[in-house]
């Protein structure tokens, strides 16, 4: 199958909408998917620029930790993303915190895409 060009490839890294994920933690876990397969090192670089560092460097799994304790887990093979809001965020603020993390991830993907399409 032929790969689409730069602009459409950028499109291919889109995130699906954020929805509550499994877990007992009362609005702490949120899910989305990366459509397409960005490579690990570049995405890690982008997230690190957004204040997250890679906590788990298993080849099949990236877990990126925010200085406030939030985490973004990414299953590289399936594109599954789990956003974990830190426990000390009050329950009522967890959805908004998750949404902020989601936007920062989307931003990281967008910057990665523009880096790609410029090359």
């Amino acid at each position, binding site marked *: 199958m032929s790969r689409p060009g730069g602009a459409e490839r950028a499109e291919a890294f889109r995130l699906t909408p954020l929805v509550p994920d*499994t877990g007992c933690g009362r609005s702490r876990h949120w899910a989305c998917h990366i459509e397409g397969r960005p490579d690990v090192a570049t995405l890690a670089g982008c997230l690190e620029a957004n204040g997250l560092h890679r906590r788990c460097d298993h080849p099949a*799994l990236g877990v990126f930790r925010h200085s406030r304790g939030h985490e973004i*887990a990414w299953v590289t093979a399936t594109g599954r993303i*789990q956003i974990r809001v830190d*426990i000390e965020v009050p329950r009522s603020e967890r959805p908004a915190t998750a949404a902020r993390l989601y936007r920062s991830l989307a931003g990281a993907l967008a910057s990665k895409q523009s880096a790609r399409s410029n090359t």
Partner: protein
Amino acid sequence: MKQMRSLLAALPDDDLTFLGSSPYVYHCHHFNLFHDQTVDDALGNEQAFAVKSRAAHEASWHLLADLVKSADAVTPAERLEIAAAALPWMGHGRLALLTEKHGGTARGEYLHYGFSWQEKYGSRVRRRHPADAFAAGWAAAATEVAYDLPPGSLRCREHACFACREAACTFEVEGGGDANLDTYVGKETFERFISPATVGQNEDTVRKIAAGLKDFVAGIESDERGLVQGFGVYVTRHLANYYDQTAYDTIHMIEREKPRVTEVIEELFGESGHVCVFYTCGGILASPEWEALVGPPENDPESIVVSCTAIARGLGFGHWSIAEMVPGERLVLQASSNYEAPFYRERYGKSEKPRCYFFANAARAFMQLAHKVDWQERPQLDDALYQSLFKSNLGWDLEMTRCQTRGDEVNEVVVTRRKA
């Protein structure tokens, strides 16, 4: 923490893990809270705190002694420092030990029991008694080890607790302890009471998944609060002797003093097996970690039971194996080793009846998760789902057919579909 890691030991074929010679397992806060609550219900808050902190004291003392020895820590300050650093590694939170030769105080933050109780129940129930008996026992043992005091000479009480909406947990360590350190259940005890590892159905798959999981959980680090979070739960690397001693001492007391509710307490300790399987095994199966290491779970009862058995091994519960599995009908689960039976045999001798409550009820919960949860829909593993699966009429009968506490070769439980 380097010192703790240097103590890691195992009987790998038997799926048992040790810190020095102390057996340890991974359990989540749902299990831990339910277990302690059953002790509280049985004995009343005050006596329960004494029983729990004594068990914690006895379980911790040997670990702390191994730890300071391996670190070659000589001064009390060094030793207290080591004890304070070990607790967060185990996921129990932070405990500052401000004790001297004859006692003193300690102050805890994010202590596992109090903190997770507040998170789980705090908005629904006002708690009026402290939750951190484990930390109390730890503080007493650490002080004895730090100052070379006679083992068991101190005790510790918790005066304020985060679970009771106090800012932090505060403890007082003082003389008058009654912990008994004469007998100890360690690695050598396990070797005497377990049997050669059984080979069950799907053995290769179970072994392979368990090995991957062991590697993975061994690498999990606690956060700056001293909490270990994984799979949607707070995990502890907990001393198995604590669970065994609190459960069996409490059950024996009920058998002596309130025999007509013996079955009730057995059911409640068994219920904590359901709680563990639902939240920990369920949480693991639904997690991104599992999806990355093994692949997303499928709606296939056999594969779920295989996965749960591997998870039990991976968490150090022992060498559990599937002797027979007929989807929709029947599971025969065996354990040639577990963390319940060796403790029982060493401490109390042979039992007249089967007593591996956790193992047996976990098997039933395996069947419930395997048949009643839609894994492809990525279920919300919350209280509501728990109630719907475990509140009444599970639909599975349970029989403990063999038990090492009774002197049988292996532990065995038969779970069968309840006839309508």
